[in-house]
């Protein structure tokens, strides 16, 4: 089959303050053949959306090459259209005008432009809404306009940047099935689709192939072929097997990474994603409760707790860091400490949390030590921020400190006054 798109060894960095560069995509390879839907799956920050913008020609890579139907991509390409997560509709244009916008640069006669726009509106199920303004429509209808606007140019490649994630569950499902149906019937004037998502089930439901992205920097870590006929049943065992398989793949890589991190001498400059102690307590309680009794399948937990991968993994990772749980092979299991935490009263929980912080999070122990040693028992935030920024990017340092503040407050390890930007051992009077 004809190759629509070929991406080879692509590298993309973004400038950081102080002349540093943040590596977002590293050595990414991807190809898209005619008739395929390829999914890019990974956590936020894994560079999926950046890759999509490179393919669209909206930005340029620092290394590697991208080619569309055999010619290199250097700018926006006619034949590649995008559907945006936030819809990106123009609020001052009607539905019809928004859809026509895609055609205006093609220099078509007004008559043909109108006919094509109306046909696209008809196809996507927006009949009767032609003269409405976007703000009069519901989210689902707005995204339909986004689809119509992309489809109307008859693109060879349709790029979709988390198109369903701003919609509620029912609307998203409705739009997904409509799209899969249109695609299956061959009614869409499109040859191939690339779908960016962080929803595992969505990827399994829609894609022929799924590329898993790892983060920091973004890389394609593995590829999974979904060999199921359309329409797919979420409840079928094969479907669930694919979902499980992806979970296992994703957690395996995370565990591996954390092992690598653990193998190095503990450093205060550890990336800490912001997870609130309440989320941790909530998940521990859920894991300790009957159906799981301390051990659970990650996909099951995600489903039961209505958590997306994006939300579940950081919490699981924080629990692993604090040694309150072990994550392995798609499973999560409470440790001894985790179980004691689940059984404990609030004060006992704070005690356990505080000790877990001191022994497992070098930054927390470091701040506590500095505060203990100082006569005033207080230290400004900049003291630690500067120290962290020697080793990590500015916003990562900010987030690490924010996380530490929230954890230390719960564990009553030390306190923080935001107005004065001051850490101290004192409790507010």
């Amino acid at each position, binding site marked *: 089959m004809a190759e629509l798109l070929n991406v080879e060894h692509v590298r993309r960095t973004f400038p950081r303050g102080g002349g540093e560069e943040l590596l977002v995509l590293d050595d990414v390879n991807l190809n898209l053949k005619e008739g395929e839907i390829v999914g890019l799956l990974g956590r936020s920050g894994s560079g999926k959306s950046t890759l999509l913008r490179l393919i669209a020609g*909206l930005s340029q890579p620092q290394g590697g090459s991208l080619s569309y139907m055999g*010619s290199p991509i250097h700018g926006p390409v006619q034949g590649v259209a995008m559907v945006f*997560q936030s819809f990106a509709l123009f609020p001052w244009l009607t539905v019809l005008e928004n859809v026509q916008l895609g055609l205006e640069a093609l220099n078509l006669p007004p008559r043909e432009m109108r006919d094509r726009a109306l046909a696209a509106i008809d196809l996507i199920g927006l009949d009767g809404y032609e003269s409405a303004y976007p703000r009069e429509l519901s989210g689902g209808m707005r995204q339909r306009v986004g689809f119509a606007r992309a489809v109307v140019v008859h693109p060879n490649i349709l790029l979709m940047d988390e198109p369903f994630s701003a919609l509620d569950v029912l609307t998203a499902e409705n739009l997904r099935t409509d799209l899969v149906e249109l695609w299956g019937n061959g009614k869409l004037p499109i040859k191939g689709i690339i779908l960016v998502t962080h929803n595992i089930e969505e990827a399994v439901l829609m894609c022929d192939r799924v590329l898993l992205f790892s983060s920091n920097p973004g890389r394609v870590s593995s590829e999974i072929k979904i060999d199921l006929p359309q329409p797919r049943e979420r409840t079928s065992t094969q479907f669930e097997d694919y979902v499980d398989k992806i979970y296992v793949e994703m957690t395996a890589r995370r565990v591996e990474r954390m092992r690598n991190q653990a193998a190095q001498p503990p450093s205060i400059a550890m990336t800490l994603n912001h997870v609130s102690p309440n989320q941790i307590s909530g998940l521990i309680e859920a894991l300790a409760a009957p159906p799981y009794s301390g051990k659970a399948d990650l996909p099951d937990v995600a489903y039961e707790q209505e958590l997306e991968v994006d939300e579940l993994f950081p919490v699981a990772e924080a629990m692993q860091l604090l040694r309150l749980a072990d994550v392995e092979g798609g499973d999560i299991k409470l440790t001894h400490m985790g179980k004691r935490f689940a059984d404990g009263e609030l004060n006992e929980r704070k005690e356990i949390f505080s000790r877990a912080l001191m022994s497992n999070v070098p930054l927390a122990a470091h701040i506590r030590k500095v505060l203990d040693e100082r006569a005033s028992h207080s230290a400004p935030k900049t003291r630690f921020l500067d120290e962290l920024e020697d080793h990590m990017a500015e916003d990562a340092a900010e987030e690490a400190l924010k996380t530490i503040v929230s954890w230390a407050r719960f564990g009553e390890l030390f306190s923080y006054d935001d107005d004065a930007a001051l850490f101290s051992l004192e409790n507010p009077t």
Partner: protein
Amino acid sequence: MKILPPVSIEARRLLPSRWDLLAAILVLSFIVAFADVSRFLVHPLSSITGHALFLNIWDLPGYALRTGLRMLIAMAVSLAFTFGYATWAAKNPRAGTLLVPLLDILQSVPILGFLSVTVVWFLSLSPGRILGAELACVFTIFTGQAWNMAFSFYQSLRTVPPELEEAGRMFGLSSWARFWRIEAPFATPPLIWNMMMSMSGGWFFVTISEAISVGDTNIALPGVGSWIAVAIAQKNLPAIFEAIGAMLVVILIYDQLLFRPLVAWADRFRIDDEQSEDQPQSWALNVYRRSKLVDLMTAPFEQMMRWSYHWQPPSFGLRAATREMDSRLADILWYALLGLVGLIGAYRIYSFAHANLDWSDLGAAVGLGFITMLRVMVLIAIASLIWTPIGIYVGLRPRLTQIVQPVAQFLAAFPNNLLFPLVVSLIVYWNANPDIWLSPLIVLGTQWYILFNVIAGAATMPKELRDAAENFGVRGWLWWKKVALPAVFPFYVTGAITASGGAWNASVIAEVASWGKTTLHAHGLGAYISDATAAGDFRRVVLGIAVMSFFVVVVNRILWRPLYWYAERKFRLT
């Protein structure tokens, strides 16, 4: 919608950068250059009025019309300036680093200062004819409007949602088409809001700049402002009331026929998704929309714009479009040019100061600056004490708000200098101390900004917060301290910043006021500039302007800027 604070409030750094310094040098040397030229142009011209002005009530509508027209012309010029300047600053980062600090300084220069240094130069363009004076008047109004509008437009251009830009590029719109179809529409609602705000300040300046004397050059352009000047000289109270009435009508017409339709029309360009509850309505817009004539008039223009979108070859298709990074050479040339211009400017300022001024002049001006600063601070404080509680009281009562809010906005627009004679005549009558009793005049017009901002703040206070306070029995002083004042604080600060900026401007005419043959003097920098202008003493005019701009910049930076950000961070209810 929020009033945009001055550039120096938005600035990220507290300390001025070298760009701020360069901007200050450029503006100051520009003023110096004008003043230098003007010194040689001042002729003892008898009078530039086309005809003598008589206080004939039947002439008043014609005068009011001409005053209104000057405003309209200035607005058109400001709009053109805004599109050029702000777009340049936003699109070209190299230019932006200088153009934005330049706006900051320009915003701080007292607007009537521009008038006194430029009017003679404009007159020299068309000697003996009225056109030069008209130009000077329009230029003054322009300087009162253009900077805010340009800054608002610049801010909007910088905050266009990236996905809208991306969608435009994706579908192959050229940069020209993207500007008109995406960026300009996005920037329209805040721009119109700022136009309205600037316009409301503009009435004040148009009436003042119609009748002005620089040295022996007396100008009286036919208009409401000159009418007032004559009425003051003749101590004619009824004529003053007639002028006030005429002004009310003009402002009302502008509001109904121009701004209300514009605001209602611009509502479609709002980016937020909410259906607005009270969509701005305008009967005039409905008339325009239904009229075939308007359609006929705008159709060719629309067709032309549509056609022009294809004007630039769209950067579309598989072409090697990656433009090389701007060359180093261009960078070096640009910085060298700026350095050179800065040096020349600094030298101009130095030689001007060296030839005309000594340290004692500077000391005197700075001393007077402190007096005016004290006056501004005290009066803003008094106005705040009065209007904040009233604003909260009104804002919490929707029906009262509906009545009071438009009145407050109207009062802010009303050229309050028309009311000066009433106050001055009383001071003369009672023989009161001008240093104290002239002071209220400087906040006469600008206090309303505090009132209507506080009303807006109280009106948008979440109902649940108020319910919670009531539920827990929070009453009396505790309620004011913990609930009401913090909730309106960010709004109050924005209002106070605007009021304080306006007060500095007003000091130029408020510290010297006359009634008949009696002229009252208060001590202060405003009076210093005013007297120097009347005497045609350009060296003191320039010094006064420079010192006042400096005070405004410094007060903005060290008082208002921290307060503004503190309020935004801590008290803004989103």
